[in-house]
């Protein structure tokens, strides 16, 4: 299944590894901040309700 990358295996695999890691990290950081801010806003809005 794994393609034959020959002498360029490290070059190709490190490119994919770094890129996928950065894309996943960006998505996770964005999702975590979105959740944190949404909860914090809900708390502030709940405090303001009579």
């Amino acid at each position: 299944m794994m393609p034959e990358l020959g002498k360029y295996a490290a070059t190709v695999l490190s490119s994919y590894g770094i890129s996928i890691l950065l894309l996943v990290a960006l998505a996770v950081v964005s999702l975590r901040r979105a959740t944190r801010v949404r909860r914090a806003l809900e708390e502030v809005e709940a405090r303001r309700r009579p």
Partner: protein
Amino acid sequence: MSSLWEYANPKKFVETSQRVLPWVTVLSVACLVVGLVWGFFFTPEDYRQGATVKIIYLHVPSALVAINAWFMMLLASLIWLIRRHHVSALAARAAAPVGAVMTVIALATGAIWGQPMWGTWWVWDPRLTSFLILFLFYLGYIALWAAVEDGDTAADLTSILCIVGSVFAVLSRYAVFFWNQGLHQGASLSMDAEENVADVFYYPLLVCIAGFVLFFVALVLLRTQTEIRARRMRALMARERMG
């Protein structure tokens, strides 16, 4: 017929983007998985570049998004400066870290690809240099938003920075056409079919580009929602403090 400016209303923007976001996310993940699996596992080696040609599925889409993210930020900044819509300023702010990460991916994969092909990780070629400067503009833009406390002042200053940085976004895109020096090749994608990469690489590359663009759109929608909520939270807390 509804106007595009309706989405300048933060509430309307959040409601609409919440409906659209799951679809864009699913489509983006599907395109990324299909494109990268197709490119990595089911395309042949290039007769000159060997297996390193597989890096094209990361390098070209990330570079394309990195440059066009700046143009999206420029458009949003101009809308802010002209019409003072907060959503556009917050969308520009939301896009910057995504564009910066895309620039890092393009620079890193370019350096890794360049080492075996050119015999060097880096060269002060016009395209590479303007791309590095674009990355520094991204960092400056993010830092400026963080450094200025007043939101409107930060939006004004970052909009001006964005207009100045657009010179380097244009240079990153077009340097190869008018600067006949440097190692970087011409465009991989062109309106002229004869200049394009071979079909066997071209179609998975198009799917990857669609995946990266949709990924950018999904993250910008999510992060803009977050910026809108954070702005509302700061306003409510300021009102609380004033009693």
